[in-house]
Structure formats: structure tokens, C-alpha cells
């Protein structure tokens, strides 16, 4: 394991220590210790900037399940480094902010920081993994830990609902993504992304290409809250504000963006990929900015603005992916990628600071409702300044960094008609129109955010709390982010060589890098005659006009509808699923054990029997069987007699004894076949089982006469006979099949190697602990769960009407 692996694992390891710190060092806010982790990691990742800007990449690999091609491989290039720096850098600021936001006396800080560290580690894992399976594991961990964070105030219904919604949607996407990864493995034969990129051409021409990208993009779109999966993001605002700032502006929702960009070298250049991403992104941009106008909650507004801004980045990535259609880099397309990377960074900085100021307003005034806020500018001057910087940057005003990336966005979409591929000469007209309209809406909601909160007259009695400026500690983090916004806005080329160019190189991996389309030079001024400048001026002019007329249009009923039109769709789906499963459960769960046995047996009969016939696997060859010895004959005879006597036994105790007897006979059979381990296990299990039976016996009612009908008995008899017959046939067929073909049973391998490879002469045990250790330990886990379930059932009995 290299240092890079440890960097991913450190947050997880530290998460184990947090509860101990919280318990024993109470006077110090636990956040101060946690702050160490992202800070140290940020310092660790920073030195990578120089070598990566020089075109180097780093790959460290540890075998995990080498036989399946699963390596825990950490890969750093420009794109993953940008994310690693965002995760750790903004992570440090968020932790610092949370120290002042969450009260150490009344909040369960141990839970909070454990979840936050889990999330941080999972996020680092996602962006640094090169192996798809490892990436998927971390991906689901981000879903899980973010759900825990959203439901941090678990006693609130809204928190739980938001958490469940986000889990439902992101995990649905995660599962389909896993299926997409499996298809990719089928196509390329490797799980390594970098190796796949080497075979990019074969992937696009493969017949499975379309299902693969749809499945993978479902994962990316659900995670990045793209239309129509965006509905979970506003509900996720129930999380504490530091969490929202971290998950929903800086990291989690960007995972989908990360994934799309990461796969661009593999899928880019295909029209399907181009249209799904560019079109989906554009639609999300419009929908998010329009919905943001309707929000009455500060954080809700920011949530929809995140949705729309992510749509914008997604759209740019889609446009830029056309570059891979040709063999050399063209400035037309690389510009879009550059704008995407630049805006991603800018969005993280200004949205982070905006979320934090929204949190400050909530924390100091006790409300986030836009309708009751107002006039805070004089009371909270520092917060207002930071908000103004963030909002102006989001609206795309000079000289802030959002202006620059917005200009490049305009630049990229106005060029869309010139692409000359994928019908862009006609459909490309839509891009600048929709993009411009969405930008007007963006400008308006930025105005709403700032002016409704900070402008106007200040009236004390409108707030539930006595309003004052936030403590300095709470202001540090948003101030640092606002400082970044301003600095990058004034000196945009600070990042060009070190961050943006290496990121573009990794997104457009495979194109010749020495092309001058790759050299980034960001300028404020494009001249009086540039279309982008006039578009920006138009946005400001129209936006101000519409905002000025807000008094009129805010009375429209559409403005006052608070629920996203897509939310009812989700709700009906969920309630329909619940109803459907209840219906099936009512039919199937009769509460009688014998019915369940019958279901299982019938299912087994149908599936296995059908497979046998379908593949024509019925073979019967008694020629090569060995003789049945007299002992075996006797044992089998005894077994038969005792099994057949079971249905006729009326007394429960006799039935238990006969059952035990059958078990011991089977143990004897194992002894006869020289399998001492199995025999020992069988003996012990049988002993323990009989004891268990005897104990439970005390509680059971006397065995009643079966009152069931004759037909029921006959059905049972037929099912049992069928299962017995099927198993016999399968055993015979398997045996004959093995005889006829040159089939090497797996046991040969164990017989040959158990002494050499594992140093043990007891093959059964060697298989258990050495060759198949994972099976064993997971089975122990199953046993443990069963044991705990027994405790839960018996010791923690539920009262009448209790819910699980």
C-alpha cells in the first residue's frame, strides 16, 4: 500500500477515533480534531500540482481480488487532482465552519463528524479509483454517508423523508451504473478505466454501446441531480447547512460530473453520448433556474441553482465531447471543456460561500424564509458583503470568476451551430437561446437571494431571534471562499496552467496534447464586438427589468406553487410500489411455516426441473458406479425406514427423537465415506439441534391431529415426492455427466495443493480457512445476524402496536 492509498483511508480510520475523542475530551469541540484530517490531506495533495501540470500521472495499485481483475488502484491525473483538492480544501473550510455552527453542548457531534469523515473518504475514493468496482463501492458509500448526514436531525420527519428520497434515487442510479460497469467489462475485459480508454474505438462500435452508456449515465444523472432526477436535491436541504455546503455544492453532486468527464475519452465522439449529456444538461439548466425563482426558502433557492449550474457544466461537457469525433483537437470543442472545468471550480467556490452565508442568516435570525427576511445589510455587514460577492459571481457579473466562466459558456453555446456534426447545424440553434434564457433566470434568482435578504428596511419583530452579526469564526470559511472568487476573477490565469490544462488533458485523453487548442488563456475583455459581451449585457438588462416587475408576476399562481411538478410522480411511484408489495406479501405470507416450505419446494422444482429439460441434461449411466457395500445398504435401509415413519408419528417428542436419529445416521454415513470432519460437524449440529428442540418443546402446544383436507395432504405428498425425485435425478445426471466428459472436479486442485500452499493436511479445514476464507467469514456473519435476530425476537419483544 502506498501513501496515496492511506490518504484515501485516513478519513475512515479517523472516523473510528472520533467517538472516543467526543466521549473523553468534552471541553474541546470535536471539530478541531477533525479539522486536522482535510487540512493534512490538502497539504498532502498540493505538491502533486507541479508534476501533474508537467504532464505526469501517478498510478498506485494494490491487489484486492486479483482473480477477478479487481485492484485497489489509485490514479491521479489533472481531473482527479482537481477534485481531491476541492474535497479536502472545501472540506477543511466546512469543518471549520461547522465548529461554530453546531453547538458542542446540544448536538450529537460524534455522529456528525463520523458521517462527514465517511463521506469525505468515500468521495476521495470515488475520484481517485481507477478500478470500476472499487469506484462503485466508494460511490455507494457516498450515497450512504450522505443519507446519514441528511437525516442527521433524525427526529424531524422532513429530514428522514429527504434522506430516504436521496437514498432511493441515488442508489437506483448506482445499481444501474453497476450494471453498466458489468457491460463495460464484457466489452473490454478489464475493470481499469485507463486500460479501457486504450480500447475506446471498440467500445463505440460494440452493439452493447447504447445500453452501456444509458446505464452508466443513469448513475451519473441521479447523483448529479440532473432532470428529471433532480427532485431529491431540494429535499436534501434538510441537512445541517455545513453539510449542504459540502455535499450539495462542492462534492457529492459533482460526482456525476466527475464520472461523465472521466468516461468522455471512452464514449466521447458518439452522437448518443453527445445528445444525452448536452441535451440533458441544457434541459436541467433551464428547469433548475426556472424552479429556483419559485423558492421561498433560501436553501431551496440555492439547491435549485445548484441543479441548474450543474446542468450547465454537464451541457458543456457534452458539447466538448464532440472533440473526440475528430482526431485532432479543435478549439471549437476544447473551449467547451475548458469552460466546464473552469465553471466547476468557480461554482464550488461561490456556491460554497453562498451556502455558508445562508447558514449564517438561518443561524442568527432563526428563519430562512425569503418572505420574512429583509434589511439585514446593516445588521450583518460582513455576511452581506460575502453574499454579494457570491451572488454577483453566480449571476455572472464582472469582475468575479463566475463572469468569466459564464462568458466562456456563452462562447461555447453560440458556436454550437458551427459543429457540423450530429445535426448541430440546425438543432444547435436551440443552445444559445435556451442558455441565454436560463441565464436571465439565473440573474433574477441571484437578485432575489441577495436583495430579499439584505436590502430593504430592518424590522426587529419579524425575526424569532435577536439578530446580530455572526461570530468571526463562522465568517472565516465563507470569507476565504469569497476571497478565492475575487482573486480568480481578477487573475484568472492563476489556474490555467496548474489546474485547468491538466484537467482538460485528462478529459480529452487520447488527443494530441501539443495542439495549441489546449493552451488556456483566460481574458476579461474580448472586445466591443464580441457576441458574449452583448449577451451578458442583455442578461443584466432583461433580468433587472423582470426583477423590477416582480411585484406583478409574483402574484401568478405558477409562481406560488411550491412543489416541483415532478415530485408527485415520485410520490405515486413510491406509494404504488408499497401497495404492490403489500398485495404480494398478503398473498404469499400466510403465517404458516408449511406453506413457506411448499413455496420454496415448488419454486425449486420448477426452476431446476425446467433447466434440466431445457438443456437436455438428463443422463443416466449406472455403468461406472461402485458397488454398494453391506454397511451402506444397512444405513440406507435404516434411513429410509425412519424417514418414512415420520409422517405417521403422532407424538411430538417421538418426532424429535426420530429426526435426531436421522441426523446421526447421516453422520455415520459420512464416517463410512471417510469424511471425519463432516461427520464431527454433523454430530455436533445434531446434538445442538436436539437440545434446541427440547428447549423449545417446553413452549410448544401438544401436537394436534392434522385437520387439513385430503387434497392438501396429497398436494404435499406430490411436492415432496417431486423434490426427492428431482434431487435424485440431478445427482445421477451430475455423476454421469462427470464420468462421460473429461471434467476435472475442483477437489483435485485442493487435494494437490492444500499441503503445499497452505501447509495443512486437513483439506476441509484448509478450504475453509485458506482457500475460501471469505465464504467462511461471511457465513459467520450470517450466523451472527441470526443470533442477534433471535435476541431481537425474544428479548426485545415488541409491545402491541409497536413499529419496527
Amino acid at each position, binding site marked *: 500500500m502506498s501513501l496515496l492509498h492511506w490518504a484515501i483511508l485516513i478519513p475512515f480510520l479517523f472516523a473510528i477515533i472520533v467517538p472516543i475523542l467526543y466521549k473523553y475530551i468534552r471541553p474541546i469541540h470535536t471539530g478541531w480534531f477533525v479539522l486536522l484530517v482535510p487540512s493534512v490531506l490538502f497539504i498532502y495533495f498540493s505538491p502533486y500540482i507541479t508534476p501533474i501540470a508537467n504532464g505526469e500521472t501517478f498510478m498506485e495499485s494494490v*491487489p484486492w481480488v*486479483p482473480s477477478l481483475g479487481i485492484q485497489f488502484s489509485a490514479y491521479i491525473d489533472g481531473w482527479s487532482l482537481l477534485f481531491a483538492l476541492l474535497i479536502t480544501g472545501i472540506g477543511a473550510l466546512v469543518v471549520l465552519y461547522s465548529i461554530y455552527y453546531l453547538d458542542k453542548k446540544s448536538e450529537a457531534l460524534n455522529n456528525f463528524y463520523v458521517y462527514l469523515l465517511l463521506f469525505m473518504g468515500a468521495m476521495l475514493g470515488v475520484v481517485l479509483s481507477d478500478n470500476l468496482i472499487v469506484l462503485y463501492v466508494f460511490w455507494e458509500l457516498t450515497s450512504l454517508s450522505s443519507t446519514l448526514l441528511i437525516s442527521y436531525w433524525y427526529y424531524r420527519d422532513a429530514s428522514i423523508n429527504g434522506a430516504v428520497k436521496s437514498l432511493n434515487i441515488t442508489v437506483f442510479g448506482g445499481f444501474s451504473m453497476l450494471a453498466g460497469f458489468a457491460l463495460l467489462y464484457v466489452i473490454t475485459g478489464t475493470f481499469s478505466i485507463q486500460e479501457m480508454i486504450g480500447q475506446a474505438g471498440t467500445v463505440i462500435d460494440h452493439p452493447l454501446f447504447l445500453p452501456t452508456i444509458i446505464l452508466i449515465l443513469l448513475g451519473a444523472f441521479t447523483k448529479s441531480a440532473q432532470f428529471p432526477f433532480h427532485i431529491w436535491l431540494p429535499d436534501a436541504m434538510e441537512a445541517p447547512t455545513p453539510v449542504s455546503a459540502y455535499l450539495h455544492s462542492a462534492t457529492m453532486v459533482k460526482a456525476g460530473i466527475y464520472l461523465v468527464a472521466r468516461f468522455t475519452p471512452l464514449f466521447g465522439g458518439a452522437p448518443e453520448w453527445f445528445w444525452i449529456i448536452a441535451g440533458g444538461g441544457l434541459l436541467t439548466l433551464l428547469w433548475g433556474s426556472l424552479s429556483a425563482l419559485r423558492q421561498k426558502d433560501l436553501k431551496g433557492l440555492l439547491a435549485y441553482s445548484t441543479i441548474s449550474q450543474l446542468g450547465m457544466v454537464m451541457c458543456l461537457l457534452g458539447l466538448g465531447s464532440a472533440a473526440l469525433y475528430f482526431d485532432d483537437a479543435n478549439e471549437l470543442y476544447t473551449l467547451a471543456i475548458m469552460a466546464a472545468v473552469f465553471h466547476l471550480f468557480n461554482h464550488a467556490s461561490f456556491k460554497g460561500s453562498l451556502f455558508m452565508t445562508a447558514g449564517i442568516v438561518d443561524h442568527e435570525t432563526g428563519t430562512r424564509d425569503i418572505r420574512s427576511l429583509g434589511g439585514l445589510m446593516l445588521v450583518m455587514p460582513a455576511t452581506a458583503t460575502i453574499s454579494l460577492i457570491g451572488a454577483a459571481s453566480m449571476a455572472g457579473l464582472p469582475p468575479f470568476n463566475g463572469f468569466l466562466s459564464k462568458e466562456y459558456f456563452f462562447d461555447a453555446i453560440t458556436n454550437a451551430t458551427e459543429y457540423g456534426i450530429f445535426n448541430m447545424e440546425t438543432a444547435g440553434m436551440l443552445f444559445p437561446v435556451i442558455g441565454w434564457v436560463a441565464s436571465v433566470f439565473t440573474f433574477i434568482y441571484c437578485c432575489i437571494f441577495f436583495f430579499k435578504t439584505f436590502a430593504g428596511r430592518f424590522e426587529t419583530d419579524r425575526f424569532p431571534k435577536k439578530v446580530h452579526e455572526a461570530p468571526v469564526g463562522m465568517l472565516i470559511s465563507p470569507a476565504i471562499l469569497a476571497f478565492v472568487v475575487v482573486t480568480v476573477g481578477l487573475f484568472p490565469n492563476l489556474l490555467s496552467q496548474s489546474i485547468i490544462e491538466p484537467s482538460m488533458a485528462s478529459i480529452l485523453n487520447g488527443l494530441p496534447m501539443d495542439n495549441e487548442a489546449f493552451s488556456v488563456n483566460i481574458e476579461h475583455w474580448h472586445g466591443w464586438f464580441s457576441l458574449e459581451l452583448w449577451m451578458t449585457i442583455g442578461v443584466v438588462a432583461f433580468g433587472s427589468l423582470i426583477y423590477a416587475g416582480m411585484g406583478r408576476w409574483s402574484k401568478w399562481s405558477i409562481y406560488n406553487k411550491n412543489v416541483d411538478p415532478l415530485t408527485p410522480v415520485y410520490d405515486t411511484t413510491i406509494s404504488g410500489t408499497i401497495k404492490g408489495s403489500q398485495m404480494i406479501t398478503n398473498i404469499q405470507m400466510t403465517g404458516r411455516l408449511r406453506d413457506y416450505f411448499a413455496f420454496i419446494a415448488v419454486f425449486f422444482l420448477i426452476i431446476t426441473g425446467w433447466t434440466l429439460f431445457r438443456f437436455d441434461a438428463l443422463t443416466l449411466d449406472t455403468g461406472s458406479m461402485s458397488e454398494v457395500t453391506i454397511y451402506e445398504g444397512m444405513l440406507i435401509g435404516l434411513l429410509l425406514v425412519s424417514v418414512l415413519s415420520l409422517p405417521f408419528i403422532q407424538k411430538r417428542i417421538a418426532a424429535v427423537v426420530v429426526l435426531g436419529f436421522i441426523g446421526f445416521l447421516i453422520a455415520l454415513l459420512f464416517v463410512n465415506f471417510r469424511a471425519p*470432519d463432516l461427520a464431527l460437524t454433523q454430530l455436533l449440529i445434531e446434538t445442538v439441534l436436539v437440545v434446541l428442540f427440547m428447549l423449545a418443546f417446553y413452549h410448544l402446544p401438544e401436537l394436534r391431529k392434522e385437520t387439513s383436507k385430503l387434497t392438501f395432504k396429497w398436494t404435499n405428498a406430490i411436492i415432496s415426492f417431486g423434490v426427492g425425485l428431482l434431487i435424485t435425478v440431478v445427482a445421477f445426471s451430475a455423476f454421469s455427466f462427470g464420468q462421460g466428459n473429461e471434467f476435472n472436479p475442483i477437489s483435485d486442485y485442493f487435494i494437490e495443493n492444500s499441503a503445499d500452499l497452505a501447509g495443512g493436511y*486437513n483439506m*476441509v479445514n484448509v478450504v*475453509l480457512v485458506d482457500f475460501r476464507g471469505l465464504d467462511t*467469514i461471511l457465513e459467520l456473519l450470517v450466523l451472527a445476524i*441470526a*443470533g442477534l435476530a433471535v*435476541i431481537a425476537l425474544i428479548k426485545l419483544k415488541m409491545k402491541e402496536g409497536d413499529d419496527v
Partner: protein
Amino acid sequence: MMKWKTNNLLFIHITRVASFLILSFSIYLFFAGHNDPGGGFIGGLMTAASVLLLYLTFDKRKIDEMLPINYVNFIPTGLLIGFGAGFIGMIFGFPYLTQFFDYFSFPLIGEVELATAVIFDLGIYLGVAAVALTIILTIAGDEE
């Protein structure tokens, strides 16, 4: 747990000796596992059986005083040891759950094989014994 209604002297006296014999044998089985019949699973079950014999013979309160152990705690302990033993290989750059073994000479005992698999097996042993005991004692201790 219900107590035997009559004082069966023979049963009590045999149990006193037998349960410890069984316990020692189960420990022997555990260590013998790698080369002879035995191992963590069987050893664990047999340990559980010997403790159960005590519970069956004497009443629950007496045994609880004699062995003040909460078997539930051993379930996670066993799991942790088992899962943790898998990481030994990873530290040296081998896949998860890689086991090692070698032969060492000790004074008095002679040459002995030491294997990391034994640590793993210890986890299984503890887990199985604890689960078996937990299930049976919980069901038996149920008052209703």
C-alpha cells in the same frame, strides 16, 4: 431455564467431569484443525455443547454466577478477529485474506507449524460458540 425436577446424582457427577473433558477436547480440536479433523467451526460447536451441558445439569443462576460471561459480546469479537486477520496479508501487499504459514523450532516443544490461518480460525471459533450459546440460552431463558 427449567431445572431438572429431581436431583439426578449420577448425571450431576458425570457432568462435572465430562463437561471439562469436552471443553479440553474442543480446544484440542480447534488447534488440531489444520492437519487433523477439527477446526474453528467444530471446536466452537463443541465448546458450546460443553457449556450447554453445564446449563442443563445445574440451574441457570448457579452457572451464571460461575461463568459470568455475556456470550453476545463474543459474536462481534469473533467477527472482528476473523475480518481483521484478513488484513495481515494486505499490509505486506498481498490480497485480502491471504494466509501465511511457516515452521519454527522451539526448545522443549520441537518443530511447530505456525499459521496465520489459526488467528482467522480463532475468530470463527469464538463466533460460532458465541452464536450457538446465545441462541440456545436466549430461547431457554424466555419466560413466557
